[in-house]
């Protein structure tokens, strides 16, 4: 990748449009370009401009672009001209694998509000046309995440300070971030958390599983069987009693016996009729209940109709009418309870209390003895009030009431006759039979009641059995879930083990390769006579930094001067960024090793020899002089002279002049 040109418009000290060439294709064998200019003339702005172009607001350089980077002169001129905005733009022209791209980022500054108008946008053109890929995707594909780009576009002094201040930590952080160890650690940490995560889920599931229910189920089934046997026994006993009852008057042709049998048959018929009546009532009751639940609707409809009729003649306002209708509708929606028209005004009925609630019961439970009892009256009143169909329901009540009264009276008469026959019979044998007949009937009745009781108990047990069976099904499902989680737990542990081992192996491979490269870099950077002493660099897997002699002995810290440490660290750093294999030009502010130009010469020369593009900003007289130019010229692609001029009322603005790369730039100061 080559950075070929950067164009600034109203960016920091660069007013209007300023083009800075960074790479001359005609001198493509020369990889190093330099921007020379005194302090505070706009050199660092070139690095910042490139970063802002690539990353926009994700790169702030510790500042807000809109309030601090828009060129002051442009703002003042815009104000004078009455303009609303200033366009700040950085265009970076790059060559990637032979293809030319223009990366253009625009930021619009609002002069009145003194802030950005919107987020700065990036567009990428190829042959004048926007590329198909999204700009963000393009940046992701060809560059590094913003915080990793600092290893390519940096201030040499800052970088060295960073490494010197807390060496081990910085080395670790740099390796972890730039090489991707952090990703392995993140994955490993996450995998390490997973077993506990699954364990918690298992505990939660286990807490919901009831204990072993097999015994309980067996016991319940036995109980149910016992109840069924008891019912069967009672039924057999009833059959025996029935046989006895049927045989009681066999062969007895006496008129009294016949009369008794006839009365009992008549009584049975009446009882059947009462039973039928009850069933019929229960059927009606179902309809009645539905009717009552639907009553609200019928009633509401009726009320609305009546209400409309009332008001048709009274001429109320349309608004009044609508609000009343709305009130009715909303009442319907909110569990409508009832409405009455009282003195021609609709009134909402408050919820009936439980006592007055309409509840149809088994006919036998209704007390018809008390004429027009309070409860009956209230039921009828509520029904009548509730629906136009209420009359039907009330008629039903009347019908059953009359029918039950007459049947009950008839039945009572027959039963009295039967009782009297038993009591008044003079024939002892017949009297005994009558008595026995009634005893048997009572016994049968008692046994039937007993059967009902046992059946209820049996049904309860059956529903418990069903519950247990359901729970056991759920338990089986939960066990499947637990087994699955156990497998996931094992898998997470297994994955973590592999990831940890891979990390160790990768770090070893990486360090071996980078240490070898860095050692060579070191040897070629130090003076020839020093090479035996400063022979190799070793960063160990614990991120400790060592410099070793040719014989493999380690140099103790005390015996290494600061410059050597700097050379060693910079060697390691450059070798590491090269390991990544991302072909991105270096843009370096300042020289690498300030204290000795000879080291810079040899270090930068090595980067130059590799043919990678290196853009450096240099201060004339200090980093840039005839001696530097002497050795640098054999790699020099472009040299730019950056200077500032005072334009009067505003801040000075910067200009760039491209100078021939074959001779040193002469400065008048």
């Amino acid at each position, binding site marked *: 990748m080559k950075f070929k040109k950067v164009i600034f418009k109203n960016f920091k000290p660069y007013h209007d449009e300023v083009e800075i060439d960074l790479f001359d294709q005609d001198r493509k064998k020369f990889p190093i370009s330099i921007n020379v200019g005194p302090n505070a003339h706009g050199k660092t702005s070139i690095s910042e401009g490139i970063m802002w172009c690539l990353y926009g607001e994700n790169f702030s350089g510790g500042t807000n672009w809109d309030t601090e980077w828009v060129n002051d002169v442009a703002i003042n001129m815009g104000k004078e001209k009455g303009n609303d905005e200033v366009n700040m733009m950085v265009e970076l022209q790059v060559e990637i694998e032979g293809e030319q791209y223009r990366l253009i980022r625009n930021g619009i500054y609002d002069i009145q509000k003194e802030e950005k108008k919107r987020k700065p946008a990036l567009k990428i053109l190829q042959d004048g046309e926007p590329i198909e890929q999204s700009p963000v995707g393009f940046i992701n594909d060809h560059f590094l995440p913003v915080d990793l780009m600092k290893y390519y576009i940096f201030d040499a002094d800052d970088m060295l300070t960073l490494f010197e201040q807390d060496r081990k930590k910085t080395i670790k952080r740099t390796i972890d971030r730039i090489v991707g160890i952090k990703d392995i650690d993140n994955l490993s940490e996450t995998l390490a958390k997973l077993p506990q995560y699954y364990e918690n889920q298992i505990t939660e599931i286990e807490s919901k599983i009831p204990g072993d229910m097999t015994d309980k189920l067996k016991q319940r089934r036995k109980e149910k069987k016992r109840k069924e046997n008891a019912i069967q026994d009672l039924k057999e006993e009833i059959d025996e009693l029935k046989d006895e009852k049927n045989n009681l008057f066999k062969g007895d042709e006496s008129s009294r016996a016949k009369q008794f049998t006839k009365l009992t048959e008549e009584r049975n018929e009446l009882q059947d009729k009462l039973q039928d009546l009850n069933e019929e009532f229960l059927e009606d009751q179902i309809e009645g209940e539905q009717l009552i639940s639907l009553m609200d609707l019928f009633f509401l409809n009726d009320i609305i109709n009546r209400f409309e009729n009332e008001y048709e003649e009274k001429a109320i306002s349309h608004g009044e009418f609508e609000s009343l209708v709305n009130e009715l509708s909303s009442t319907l929606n909110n569990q409508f309870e009832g409405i009455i028209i009282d003195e021609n005004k609709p009134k909402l009925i408050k919820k009936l209390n439980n006592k007055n609630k309409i509840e149809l019961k088994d006919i036998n439970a209704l007390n018809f003895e008390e004429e027009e009892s309070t409860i009956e009256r209230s039921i009828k009143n509520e029904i009548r009030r509730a629906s136009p169909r209420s009359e039907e329901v009330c008629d039903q009540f009347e019908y059953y009431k009359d029918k039950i009264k007459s049947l009950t009276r008839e039945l009572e008469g027959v039963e009295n006759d039967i009782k009297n026959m038993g009591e008044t019979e003079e024939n002892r044998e017949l009297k005994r039979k009558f008595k026995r007949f009634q005893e048997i009937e009572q016994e049968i009745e008692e046994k039937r009641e007993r059967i009902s009781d046992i059946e209820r108990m049996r049904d309860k047990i059956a529903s418990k059995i069903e519950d247990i069976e359901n729970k056991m099904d759920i338990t089986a499902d939960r066990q499947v879930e637990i087994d699955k989680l156990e497998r*996931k737990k094992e898998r997470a542990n297994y994955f973590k083990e592999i990831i940890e081992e891979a990390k160790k192996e990768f770090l070893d491979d990486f360090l071996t390769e980078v240490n070898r490269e860095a050692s060579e870099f070191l040897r070629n950077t130090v003076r020839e006579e020093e090479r035996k002493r400063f022979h190799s660099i070793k960063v160990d897997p614990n991120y400790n930094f060592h410099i070793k002699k040719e014989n493999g002995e380690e140099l103790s810290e005390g015996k290494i001067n600061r410059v050597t440490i700097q050379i060693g660290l910079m060697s390691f750093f450059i070798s590491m960024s090269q390991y990544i294999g991302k072909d991105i030009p270096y843009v370096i502010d300042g020289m690498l090793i300030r204290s000795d130009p000879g080291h810079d010469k040899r270090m930068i020369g090595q980067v130059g020899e590799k043919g990678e593009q290196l853009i450096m900003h240099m201060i004339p007289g200090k980093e840039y002089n005839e001696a530097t130019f002497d050795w640098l010229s054999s790699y020099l692609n472009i040299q730019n002279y950056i200077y500032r001029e005072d334009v009067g009322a505003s801040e000075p603005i910067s200009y760039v002049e491209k100078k021939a790369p074959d001779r040193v730039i002469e400065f008048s100061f």
Partner: protein
Amino acid sequence: MSEDKIKNVIKKVAKEKEMEEKNRELLLELYDHVSEHREEASDSRKKTLIRKINNKMEE
């Protein structure tokens, strides 16, 4: 990029450990997933990561 180098090492180690191919693929997928989100390693991100990895662990 070094991601490829890391993935090659993971692949190699997983093969040496006779890890089944489907597990190997899943492990590499998990690594891809983590490296894609390297910029956003906040706590909530980590929780999301756990959830996502958990989903991927479903057989």
